């Protein structure tokens, strides 16, 4: 029973294990400490955004403006640091800014009932172009010395970044399962009207989820920005694709109501490892995107196949129950 419930996550995990074994056999240096650290660091921000995206997709919506929000938060973090805002205050400021941008999406989608794909497409363009206009394309440079690595030193900060990303994942995973609010997220994604009839307020749930999405994007932007000595004004391009792909490969239904954060972790790991793995095996990394695309398609197709199989089984069970009750 338990196994069949998580079969989508399990099949993604299996694919990941196969990938690791294959790469390990072909190029054992892949498992060098330096490479693993780089992989973890590069993927931590994507993982944070994917956590938020999982919530958004679970309620049956989508947010493709996260890349632009990420850029806005990155640049804002740089500016605030240059203005002399202490490092300790950077985190709450960036979280707040992200949450505000998320709240705009949430209000438009939740309360005005506009389709999220269009709303966030508009925001994707709006934030990105507003930022380009404000910065004139210039990077934020001349940052105070304690901005990079939070002034903690590289090693400690790297552990911190990866630790925070995993900690957030664990925390949200726990909340989705153990809080009434988490239950509401699944209920709204499965059948918003039924959830409303049961006393849940879908609009509030959708609003809240978009706000969390924004805050997590802000956090991801800050953790990413401190790794470098300057903040680019065009950060986060294509981030929304990576996040959505991780969620879908992790077994969540794009129509909402089904998915887990463990699945998202596996999906993010699988998609985030592919490119590096190709390089190690000696395949031209230009293939990375094509292979990622193939993985996403494979996830969707196997999902449909599994769903079909389930319905057949459910049909059989229904018959049995009806017969038994006669």
């Amino acid at each position, binding site marked *: 029973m338990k196994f069949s419930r998580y079969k989508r996550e399990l099949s993604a995990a299996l694919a990941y294990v196969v990938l690791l074994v294959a790469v390990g056999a072909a190029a054992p240096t892949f498992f060098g400490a330096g490479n693993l650290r780089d992989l973890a660091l590069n993927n931590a921000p994507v993982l944070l955004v994917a956590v938020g995206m999982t919530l958004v997709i679970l309620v049956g919506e989508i947010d493709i403006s996260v890349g632009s929000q990420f850029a806005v938060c990155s640049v804002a973090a740089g500016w605030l640091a240059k203005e002399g805002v202490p490092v300790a205050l950077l985190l709450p400021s960036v979280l707040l800014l992200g949450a505000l941008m998320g709240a705009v999406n949430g209000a438009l989608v939740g309360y005005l009932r506009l389709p999220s794909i269009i709303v966030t497409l508009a925001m994707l363009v709006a934030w990105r172009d507003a930022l380009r206009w404000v910065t004139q394309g210039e990077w934020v440079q001349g940052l105070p010395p304690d901005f990079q690595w939070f002034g903690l030193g590289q090693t400690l900060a790297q552990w911190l970044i990866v630790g925070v990303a995993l900690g957030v994942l664990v925390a949200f995973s726990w909340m989705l399962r153990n809080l009434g609010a988490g239950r509401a997220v699944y209920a709204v994604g499965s059948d918003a009207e039924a959830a409303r009839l*049961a006393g849940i307020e879908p609009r509030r749930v959708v609003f809240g989820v978009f706000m969390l999405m924004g805050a997590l994007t802000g956090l991801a932007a800050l953790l990413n920005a401190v790794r470098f000595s300057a903040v680019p004004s065009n950060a986060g391009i294509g981030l929304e694709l990576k996040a959505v792909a991780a969620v879908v490969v992790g077994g969540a239904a794009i129509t909402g109501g089904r998915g887990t954060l463990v699945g998202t972790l596996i999906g993010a790991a699988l998609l985030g490892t592919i490119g590096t793995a190709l390089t190690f095996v000696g395949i031209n990394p230009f293939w990375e995107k094509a292979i990622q695309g193939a993985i996403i398609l494979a996830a969707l197709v196997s999902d449909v196949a599994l769903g079909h199989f389930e319905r057949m089984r459910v049909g059989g069970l229904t018959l049995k129950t009806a017969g038994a009750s*006669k």
Partner: protein
Amino acid sequence: MAEVPLLRATDMTKSYAGVQALKSASLELRAGEVHALIGENGAGKSTLIKIITGAVEPDGGELRIEGKTVTNNSPRVAKALGVAAIYQQPALFPELTVAENIALGVEESGMGGRVDWRGRRKRAAELLAQVGARIDPDADAGDLTMPQQQLVEIARALGADAKVLILDEPTASLSEEDTQNLFNVIRTLRERGVGMVYISHRLEELPVIADRVTVLRDGRTIDTRLMSEVNRQQLIQMMVGRELSAVFPKREVQLGDVVLELRDLGCAEGGIKNVNLSVRAGEIVGLAGLVGAGRTELARAVFGLTPVDSGQILLRGEPVRIGSPAEGIRRGIAYLPEDRRRHGVILDMQIGANITLASLDRISRRGVLDFKREKELAGDYARRLGVKTPAIYVPVATLSGGNQQKVALSRWLLTKPSVLILDEPTQGIDVGAKSEIHALMTDLAAEGVAVLMISSELPEILGMSDRVAVMYGGAIVEILDRADATQEKVLALALGHDAAEVASAGAD
């Protein structure tokens, strides 16, 4: 009687998921006649019509059109045989012009065919003239009024050479004048030899327009009579003459104070007008009426789903405003919606989670769910209601209809409501589960819950209710005591007949 009837359906049977919608329905339609088809909600009219139009495949029985047996019926086959149907809500494409809409039903060219625009307009104009409609063929169908759209549909049916025309409650939302216009068109068609099946709840218009009438009840054809030989009261009796075979577990309960009171309640969005009703603790009030009379809309207004714009809702004598279901639940109201497959339960969710969904506060401490308590409570209610399942952590989708309904009901009982509104609680579920739910309702009443039950099944209404409120056109037209309520009276009131007539029907 030697002539071959235009259409003959014999002993049609059909069941949906174990529930028999048609047991033995027959209908004979002659060329050039208007044949009324009447029956209560759920008598099987729509199923019979859907079989004739090929939308539904019958389990048994024979359909003949002009003497030839129809096999493998489908909407396409039926159309080719000259069957057309017009429903209460016109089914035109609002973005297309009138001429285009008519062409869609008439032109046979495939996807690659070229459009003859001029011919299309000309034919549309001719067909519209035949039904006496002055409508511009170039107008967008969406801009027409409802009666105009109906005429366009009839014109389309004529263009497709329809010999059998099915009219499903065509006058339900027409004004007197538009109704007369429609009748004129129907008479013209009759002279041209078109056979028409005319479904209507307005019994008073049948003598004006129909030649014969067939009455359906519980999926069976009761009788076919000449319209000139029957009167309205006889028709009503044929419609309701249902044996009260099922024994209802009704118990005498000591009634308590008034729990729910509605004073002049009005709700424009739901079409509800001046509703006055009270339900006491331990009382079951049945809400009867035809589909569309406003029963569900009234329930939705009380539960905070549609805004109330006049009058008051009082709970235990205190006026309250209920702006959302969440507020309704907090105030002790529970609403079991009709059509559980759509929104009564969440099919993908586990049984346990479905049961606790409206009581998350009760199974959590500071927002954190207590899984042990959830398992206990959900298991408790699943057992108490006799949900037949191996475990409470399987998705509700794996259950039969009756058991899904028990899960939906469990959810509401767990909220410990003082007012329980049940909307068609036993519709489409098997007999065993049905009587279990009835027994449960009696228990709840005995525990002092005020129950408001919407039902389209007269025996259920009469068998379970202490009082019966009958709705018609968004208002409660009469509230009958259990002792005074008969099937004839309730149906006559639901059909919009006045009290004097009802009295004579009762004396009949």
